[in-house]
């Protein structure tokens, strides 16, 4: 982890309000793991006051050039400011931060369950799984085909799409895809593990699915952060009662990827 200045190579609106940001990072930026995030300073005039955390969609090295990608949505003042930064602008970031997805030693099939813009870290993970030649299945649900970002890149494993409006793929929730995949492919806790990222409701449901079946399941969490480095204790992960005594792990250092079956989703903001 380091604080580095990086340069915007591209900051492009892909679909309404959804941007792909490509940043050139210096050598001091160490190689990130899928699921890790960076803490971006969006302006130096104090507005917004705090940095904003963004998961990495990818990390690329070509010759001496290192770049990271972030896939983000405009939801508030910080992301709006970010969306207005032109190519060539320098941005101060701290990263890579947190712990990423842990692929089991034991060879299991990874089921990647992505919802909406939560697809970003899972695309990074899928590339890693492909490099490592690990079997995986990519399940991706979104509101409509316009929100289905990046899936064309998924090449190493099977891909199933779902949309709420039926404009592409299965007409319904990605949760149904998971259920179907689980049953049809005959996965077991011994042969499969789940990695998920997406809206709160989806993660909660996937976590319940996994806990019911005793499957290993990691989710990439989101929540407000201040320092991003474990110092302020502002980003507690609430755990289920049976984990009492573990206190509140800090999302920024013990997460953002965390055992989904341990999280108390009712109490996660």
């Amino acid at each position: 982890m380091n604080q580095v200045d990086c340069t915007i190579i591209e900051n492009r609106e892909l679909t309404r309000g959804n941007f792909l940001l490509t940043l050139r990072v210096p050598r001091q930026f160490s190689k990130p793991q899928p699921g890790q995030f960076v803490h971006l300073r969006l302006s130096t005039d104090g507005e917004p006051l705090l940095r904003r955390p963004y998961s990495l969609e990818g990390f690329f090295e070509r010759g001496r050039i290192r770049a990271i990608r972030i896939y983000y949505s405009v939801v508030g003042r910080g992301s709006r400011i970010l969306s207005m930064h032109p190519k060539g602008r320098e941005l101060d970031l701290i990263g890579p931060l947190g712990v990423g997805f842990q692929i089991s030693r034991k060879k299991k099939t990874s089921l990647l369950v992505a919802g909406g813009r939560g697809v970003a870290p899972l695309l990074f993970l899928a590339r890693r799984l492909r490099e490592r030649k690990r079997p995986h299945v990519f399940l991706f649900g979104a509101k409509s085909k316009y929100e289905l970002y990046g899936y064309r890149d998924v090449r190493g494993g099977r891909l199933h799409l779902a949309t709420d409006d039926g404009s592409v793929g299965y007409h319904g929730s990605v949760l149904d895809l998971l259920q179907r995949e689980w049953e049809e492919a005959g996965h077991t806790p011994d042969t499969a593990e789940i990695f998920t990222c997406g809206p709160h409701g989806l993660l909660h449901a996937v976590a319940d699915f996994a806990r019911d079946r005793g499957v290993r399941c990691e989710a990439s969490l989101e929540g407000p952060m201040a320092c991003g480095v474990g110092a302020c204790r502002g980003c507690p992960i609430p755990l289920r009662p049976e984990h009492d005594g573990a206190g509140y792990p800090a999302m920024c250092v013990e997460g953002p990827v965390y055992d989904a079956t341990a999280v108390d989703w009712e109490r996660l903001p």
Partner: protein
Amino acid sequence: MTPATKPDLRVRIGSLELRNPVLVASGIIGYGREYERLVNLGAIGGIVTKTVTLRPRAGNPPPRVVETAAGMLNSIGIENPGLEGYHAVKVPILRDLPCARIVSVEGEDVAEFCELVRGVDASGVADAIEVNISCPNVGPHGMRYSTDAGNARDVMTAIRPLTRLPLIAKLTPNVTRIAEIAEACADHGADAVSLVNTFVGMAVDSRTRKPILGTVLGGLSGPAIKPLALAKVWEVVQAVDIPVVGMGGIAKPADALEFLLAGCVAVEIGTAMFADPGLPESCVAGIADYVRGMREHSVDAVIGAMIVPEGRGVIRAGKAQRENARATRAASGGSS
């Protein structure tokens, strides 16, 4: 010793000499480890640790932070490993820090404060103790101590005999007259007071119709509170003779200077560090530049140097000490 030489930024808080007047505030930087790759601790005056309580505290339910206009609300709830955890885990970290280590403590009653002060003193790594009688996030207990001059007196009276370390009483701004509490601390053994802790605040999410923080109320910090913090400091520097450590919303070197000019002997950097970990160091640089710009050679020339309009107040805090320091340095004929 021309103004072009490196200015002398040393300041004193009781028996503790800081290499410069810039500290990091409690709760911002943990015990120094988390930020070690981002902050050059060797360049700043020191850090104040996250507050240590007697028993470990898991902290408050989430959400614990929310950004507001030029500020943030927090309801961390003093998450910390307790005094035992402090000894076991934090003391080794503090031992190696290349700057002054001010350990913050908070008890739920006088007895707890005593036990904490004894424990921290015995740990051997503290250069001073910040006595947090002001946290707004731990319910009636913290608030009780923080808003009543009598309680401040009781705590100070009880802990003063237990240590020779400088004691800095950290005050809450959530009171009608903060000077009364500062006076009670000064009269009962505090070597300095520090202020402000956060202001009690709240935010509501109109979409969910819920308070945003899990605890409803939290503490407001950041640039939004700077004018309020300065006004509290202004009240206190006119009321006590002991040094005052100022904080609240410092986000650039000029902000730090406002506090020093108003009479603070040192400043603590808080919330704005989350965005800019280099801020404490740039404040040190900014203060040095300012001293040079005044064609002076010591930061003593800045502290309390605000030009007060006729009849609108007199800065007492730290005056004797500063004059003393000036005399000593003049006699010894040189600065660093």
